[in-house]
Structures are given as C-alpha cells and as structure tokens.
C-alpha cells in the first residue's frame, strides 16, 4: 500500500511536468509561421496562451499540493498503524498473552505491553486482542494464525520458501558493582538469545530458542550454549492446544516472559530465580487453553528433578556475590532441574497452572508442580519434589502492583542428609520466597518511558531440613581458593530491597538502573546498570 501510493503520486507528478514542457514547446513552435500578423496581436495571443498555461500550471500545482497532503496523511496513518503493530508485538512478547499456558492478556504496566498503559485499551478481558495470538518468544499457547506474527517486523516471515519461518531474539548486558567489595565488580553480556519458529500449517507450529550465556561458551570460558525451548504446538480446538517438546513451565511472572523488557530491575527477582528456577523448562507433553470466562489453564507431564548429583560438600561458599547467587545455581531446584540434557526420566512429574484474567487490569493465578525425583545417594524410598506458587498483578492507571509467593518441598531427604553429616549444604525439606512490587509509569514522551519501581522480597533456600542442618562455617573463612580471599560464609536466606528505574527508549530497548540492599548478606549490596532488548 505504502509504496504503491508513492509510486502513483510520482507518476502523476511526472505527467504534469511533461505536459507543461510539451505545452510550452507547442506555443513556441506555433508562433513562427504567423509572424506577419501584427506584433501586438501576436503578443496578445501569446500572452493569452501564456496565461492559459500559467493557469493550467497553477491548477496542476494545486492538485499536486493536494496530492502531497494526501500522501502525508496516508504516511501518518501508516506510521500509526505500524506503531500499534509494534506495541501489539511487544505485548505479545511481554505479557502472558496467549502464552505457553494460553493465558489471556497480562495486566502489565510495562511499556512493552499495551494493556495497562494510560490511554491504551486494556486487553485483560480479551486474551490480548492487541497482541497477535502467536507470541514471538517464550510462550505462545496458540498455534499460528493468519494474523501478522510478532517478529515479522523487521524480521519475520520472508518471501517464498521462508514464508513460514520466524526469527526473533533478545538479550541483556549489565554492569554490577558490589558497593562493599568493589573488587568483585562484574560486567557481563549475560544473555544473547535467538529464536526460530516455523509454521507447518494453520494449526501446527514449531518454536525454539537458543541462548549463549556469558558471551563466550567453551570449555575454558564461563559461558554456556543452551537450547532453552524446542517444542511443537498443535491446536486441537479453538480453545485447547497440545504442546510437545522442551518448553517453559507456566510458573510466576518471569519464567515464561523472561525477556529483559518484561521485568523491573536489571536482574530477575530472587524469588523467581532461587525458588522458581527461571528459566525453568522441562521436556514433556502439555495441553493448554482458555475459557469464555477468563480462565487460562495448562497441564502437563514432564521430566522432573534429579537429586543424585547434589553437592553436599562445597568446600567454599557456592556464591560470594548476589550475581553468583543467581548464576551459580545454589538453590534447590536450580541445582537439580535437568534442562533435558540426558535427563533422568525414570520418574515423570506433573504440573497444573491456572490464571484468571476476567477483570481488566487484573491477573491472578497459580501453579503446582509435583513428581518423584531421582534420589540422592543413600535414600531409601522415593523423594517427591513439589513446587507451588500463587501470584497476582493489578495495574490501576499508571500503577503496576504485583505480588508472588512460591513454596517448594522435597520429601524423604533425611537419609541422604544423614549420610553427609557436617555438610554445609544438605538437601532442604522446604524452601520458599515471596515479593511485593510496585511500579509507576512516571513519564513518557513519544516512545520514551520512565518506570521507577520498588520491590521487597524474601527468600529462604532452606527453611526446613530433616536428618541434619547445614553446618555453616563461622567466623572468617576462605571464600574461594584464591589465597587470602577470606570472608564470612553467606546466609542462604535474605530480605532484599530493590529500587530503580526502567527507561525505555522504545518498547523493545530498555536501559535499567537499580540498587539492592541485602539484610543478612550485606556484602551483596550492589548497584546494577544495564541494557536489555528484544525483538
């Protein structure tokens, strides 16, 4: 449309100019044979003709101007439409809109999401009408449809043979400075992720995501290369879709929607890192869908947890900074989920997730995961791992208020713990965490948006133990194998205040800054600065 309009306008302009030139030439040519007439008559006639030509030119110029105005209007309209489309895509990426659990519209106030922004129609009741039904990243619950697909701008479906292929990506990099021990300051290209999707037919779609963590992945570098998602969706009915493969579990806010534009603060919150082990994926089968009255549901059978390689004997703390706390996988499920890498699959697990989106601006939901684990050495009988969570998000006006509680339990670990007396890291029987968070859409100008937020959270990676309790070294102890690197052994629970801002340059590009205060592990206090993007 856009290019067609431009082309026709240009054609018409050229025709007008050609006509003028032709007209002038005709006049000049006709004047010569009639030179015998009086000069006055000739001049008069010429003047009349000139006048006529001038009038014609003026008329054409007017027409031209009108056309140009029309063109501007069309361009403006197009621009608006494109903007709306981008927002819709961002919403699809950001919100659990039609997400892995086919959850309808999210009540996010983040700019990447259309729903709760002032002046934006809420999608809460309508499964994110603004969003295409196929999410471009983590969680599309719905199979591909005829709607424009997210990721189609600027990538998206190509021409011809690539018509059904879709590409997308996201990433984040940061600078993290521990204010009490600046020697541990770190900068990292934490994630670079690219996704590939393929639509087989109107009801069958493949999605996958590939991630490079920490920039360089090799045996001598800290990075990893991972397949984060790899699944096929098959639409069974208008309201239910079957999913098979490696997929994200629909727990909490972040797990399925972990792109940096979708959460406040440079780093993900601790509850959804240490208790819900985002980005948590399992291999298996699930069915998800929604209902007329705003309930989205998802249930499945997946691989589960492996306790066999639990590290009972860390000589040094598994983490000495908040960054390592999130990255090194010390938390119970971080350490034991298998990511479908030659996963032990003797026991399978089951999960169910429900979310209610029936009221505008509101998202209330919860999920439960349970299954037998591959046992730790020394265990007699089975160990069952259960994780459940409940969450709510409310976005009245410019506010974005959310809260989440998550609780995990591992049964029958006393034997394994008793076989490792003295361990600073026995397997916990229970672990939990929760947070409350408030954000405000403080300022916006064009695509620029500024969203300050504050979050309070508590996590406890070992609230209960059986058989034994952690034998935590007291006093000053070596923290790493570097000679002279001494400090105190960190606590495996803490209360954390986080405050900061998300500054969006576009809905897809965000700069973040925040500061975190730790109540128990005060050495972890840190300032974070970073950049996140997705497309």
């Amino acid at each position, binding site marked *: 449309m856009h290019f067609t309009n431009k082309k026709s306008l240009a054609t018409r302009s050229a025709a007008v100019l050609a006509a003028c030139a032709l007209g002038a030439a005709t006049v000049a040519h006709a004047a010569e044979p009639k030179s015998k007439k009086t000069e006055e008559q000739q001049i008069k006639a010429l003047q009349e003709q000139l006048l006529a030509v001038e009038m014609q030119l003026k008329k054409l110029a007017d027409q031209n101007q009108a056309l140009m105005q029309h063109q501007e209007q069309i361009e403006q309209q197009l621009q608006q439409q494109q903007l709306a489309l981008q927002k819709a895509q961002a919403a699809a990426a950001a919100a659990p809109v039609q997400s892995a659990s086919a959850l309808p519209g999210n009540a996010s106030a983040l700019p990447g999401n259309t729903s709760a922004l002032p002046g934006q129609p809420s999608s809460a009741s309508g499964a994110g009408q603004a969003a295409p039904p196929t999410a471009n990243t983590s969680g599309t619950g719905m199979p591909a449809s005829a709607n424009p697909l997210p990721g189609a701008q600027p990538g998206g479906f190509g021409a011809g043979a690539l018509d059904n292929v879709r590409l997308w990506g996201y990433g984040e990099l940061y600078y993290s400075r521990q204010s009490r021990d600046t020697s541990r300051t770190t900068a990292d290209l934490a994630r670079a992720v690219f996704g590939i999707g393929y639509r087989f037919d109107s009801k069958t779609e493949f999605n996958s995501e590939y991630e490079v963590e920490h920039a360089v992945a090799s045996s001598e570098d800290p990075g990893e290369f991972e397949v984060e998602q790899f699944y096929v969706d098959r639409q069974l009915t208008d309201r*239910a879709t079957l999913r098979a493969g490696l997929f994200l579990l629909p727990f909490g806010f972040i797990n399925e929607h972990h792109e940096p534009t979708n959460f406040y603060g440079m780093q993900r919150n601790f509850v959804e890192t240490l208790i819900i082990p985002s980005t948590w994926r399992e291999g298996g089968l699930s069915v998800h869908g929604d209902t007329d009255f705003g309930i989205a549901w998802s249930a499945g059978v997946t691989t589960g947890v492996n306790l066999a390689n639990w590290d009972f004997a860390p000589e040094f703390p598994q983490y000495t900074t908040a960054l390592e706390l999130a990255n090194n996988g010390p938390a119970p499920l971080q350490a034991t989920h298998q990511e479908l890498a030659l996963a032990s699959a003797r026991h399978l697990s089951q999960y169910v997730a429900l979310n209610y989106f029936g009221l505008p601006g509101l998202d209330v939901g919860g999920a439960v995961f349970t299954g037998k684990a591959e046992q730790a050495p020394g265990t007699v009988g*089975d160990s069952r791992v259960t994780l459940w969570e409940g969450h709510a998000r409310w976005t009245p006006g410019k506010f974005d208020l959310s809260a989440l509680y998550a609780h995990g339990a591992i049964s029958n670990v006393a034997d394994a713990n008793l076989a490792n*007396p003295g361990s600073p890291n026995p397997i916990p029987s229970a672990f939990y965490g929760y947070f409350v968070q408030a954000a405000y859409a403080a300022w916006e100008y064009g695509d620029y948006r500024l969203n300050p937020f504050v979050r309070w959270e508590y996590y406890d990676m070992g609230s209960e133990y059986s058989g034994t309790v952690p034998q935590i070294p007291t006093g000053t102890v*070596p923290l790493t194998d570097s*000679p002279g690197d001494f400090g105190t052994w960190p606590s495996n629970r803490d209360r954390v205040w986080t405050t900061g801002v998300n500054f969006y340059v576009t809905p897809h590009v965000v700069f973040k800054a925040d500061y975190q205060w730790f109540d128990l592990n005060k050495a972890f206090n840190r300032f974070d600065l970073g950049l996140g993007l997705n497309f």
Partner: protein
Amino acid sequence: MVSNNKTRVYAWSLLVVAAATLSACGGSSESPPIPAVQALSAAAVAGEALFNDKSLSASGQQSCATCHVKARAFTGDPAVDKGLPVPLGGVNMDEPGFRNAPSLMYAAFTPPFSIDDGAASGGFFRDGRASSLAAQAVQPFVTPFEMANQDAAEVVSRLQSSPDTLRKYIAAFGGGTLGDANATLTNMGAAIAAYETEDVEEFEPFSSKFDAYVDGKVKLTDREVNGLALFNNPGKGNCTACHPSVHQEFSSHALFTDFSFDNIGIPRNWNIPANAADPVNPFTGVSLKYMPAQTNVPADAEYTFYDMGICGPLVSDPQDGGARPDLARLIPSCGQFKVPTLRNVALTAPYFHNGVFPEIHKAVEWYITRDINNNTGNNPTPVPAGPGGNPYQAVGTFFTATDGTPDLYQYNDLPVAYDANVNAGEVPYTAPAIAGGNGPTMTAQEIDDLVLFLCTLTDGFDPNNPSAYNVPAQCQPIASP
C-alpha cells in the same frame, strides 16, 4: 464438531494422565549388583607370585611385600625398617630410601597423571611420576636402595632361577619373551598390576565400617558420626576437600582422595638419613651414593637435600613412555605430593611422604595447628595455650634436628624461598595473620572424634560379626572415655 473437538481434548488429557500414572509406577531404585569375586587371571596369579618372591631381589631378602605389608594395608613396617620412616633395601638390606612406602590399597583407581591450569593430579608413586600401576611396579626391581638389581637382565635371570614364579609367569605370558629382558620386566610389571587390580579382596575390598554404614548395615557411634561431620565441615576439618567422603568419578565408592597434588608444608623429618647435612648410611657410616642430583634448590637454601615431590629430585623412568613430564621448571609445584587415600589410614603409620608423624592423632593435630602454635620461630603471632586458645604445644613445630630444637624456619622441609608454595588458603590451615586471628578450627575433643571416624575407614568390618572387627591399636585408647 465442537463436541468432537472436546472429545479430542479429553482424549489428550487422558493420555497425559495415563503417562503420569505410568511414570508414577516407574519402578523403584535398585542397588547395583554386588560384583562376584572372580578367579584371578593367569597374569594376576603370576603377579601375586612376583609380588611375594624375595628371590627376585639382589639381597634375596626383599620382595614387594616386604615394604607393602598386607596387615598394614600394604605399607611398610617400621619394625622391619629398624625404626626408620623409610624402607631399607639394597644388596645388604641396609640402604635407606627417601620416602615412606605408600599404601597399595585402592591404588588401582588412580587416574593417569594430568596437569590442568597448573593443578596436577593422578599418576603413580607419591609424585605421580609413573604412568601406570604396571610402570610403577617394575621400578623397585632395579632401584639400588630397594631390590637393587643392576638391570632388567638381572631381574630376568633371577626369575628364571625361581621355578614356581617362573612357571606362573610362563603360564600367563609364555616363555617366548624371556630372551628379551626389557619385555619380560614389562610383563612382570603388568602381572603385578593385574594382581593389585584383580584381587579386590586384598586391594579393593571396600569392607570398612564406614562402607557398612554407607550401605545402611551398621550405625556409627555418635562420636564417629561427629567425626565424619567434622571431616566434612568446610569450617572445621575440611578434610573432604581433598579426601572426598563421597564417591567421585573414579569409583562408585568414596576413595578418600581426589588424586590431586598439594603442598601442605609438613615438617622436615630428620630421621630420614638423606636429610642429614652429610647423608650417610646410618648402619655403615658410608655416604649414600645413590643420592639423586638436586634440582631447583636455591643456592642459599637452608639445608642440602630437599625432597620436593613433583618437581624433583626423583624423575620419571625414561623407558616409561607415558610418564609424567619433567616438572622441574614448575617452581610453584615444588613441594607438592599426591593426596593419598585415607582408607585404612589407621594401619599406615607413619604419616606423610616423609613419615614425620608416627601417630594419626599427631598428624591431625598438626593439620589443625600448623600455623597456630607457640613457636615464635614459626609464627609471629602465636595463639596462647590454654582454654579457648591453642591446646597443642608440641605439635606443629618445626625442628632443626631430631632432638627437638625449634627451627627458625617454618615449613622447613622446603627452602624458605618456596614458602609461598605452601597451601595456606584452605581450612584447616587458617594462618592467624591472614584469617583475622582465628584459633584452631577444632578442639581437642573434636580431634579425638575425627580420629575415631578415620578409624572406621579400616577394612575388615563384618556387619554380622561387628565384635570381630580388628580395631587398629592406635584407635583404641581414643575410643575409651
């Protein structure tokens, strides 16, 4: 159509539920089958004969078994060694060696030598210089202060004069190679390695009280459990950091070594003749002619001879193709020795490569107090003795001679210039100067408990007849209240 779709959804749901049910019934864990004790191979039978055949030595009085006594977990016997911490050998059985004989038990699990980013592990002998159990086994035959054969030919001629052993050798390898002395000696090494590997009842029984405890067949006493907890606790003993109490990739059992190398700065043992200012044979007064050429010792070093393990002075046999490379230039490794297994540790006194501690209790005390003692020559900020302070005054000091005169130098089995090589960054070596004045990480009572736990690593426990357990002598007084 809608109802059809619904039906389909339900069908899928049923499938999901069915799969879940299936998984829930997926069977329980099964213990791996206990490997049946198999008959030894012909090579292993030959190996056993070779291992015990004294006629293969120049003295006619020494076999492998002389310095690797079964009742002592295949380590040396100080009584045989006339009180020295190192074995005696040679033509007249009076030439002292350089190192305390290591246990051969569980040695078959040792991985090949490797060095990764400066961190060495594996290999055979205390310094990892032999490539395999077989390559290690041939060396004592031709070492002048051990079995003292001149060369492989002499070994083979002695083999040919020992009918029973020869018969078993031929049964395993045939007689064809006997004309090639080097090949025959290589076969002898392979045979001994086969014996040490295949005879699991002798060398890898995993029959300690600890193993029965891990298998749930017996309970440890409270003090033993406390000892294990202290062993594991990274702020107390932290022993498990190098002597893992859980299995690793080497075996399905805990081996109590990770085969890494470490320099723990143990005291010099003046009872080793080579350590004397003028090394002589203590029985004949004749100079030790087989002293290896010193390498890496600084010109201003305090003493003449230093055994610095991985960086010399003992070097790999040139004929051992896959042997450890020469690490003489790797100065930071000087003083490193391979971490030994602690299985049967209560039977293997004296302790460490130089046998400086005659009792296991002293060895543990020394670990806890290495840098915390009252010897101002060793430590500029000593922890005072007494309640809450250092309970150990006699251990951890470094002496200038056997008479107990305190040495001016800490870590005196190393040149002072190499003191930085000593591991000072791990518990229990919490040097007060850098760790904020920490006292010992364990009390005297805790050390007792830790030693009691170490005693449970002694093989030969029968859960059906626990009273028959042969508790090593040095464990008994600690166990009594």
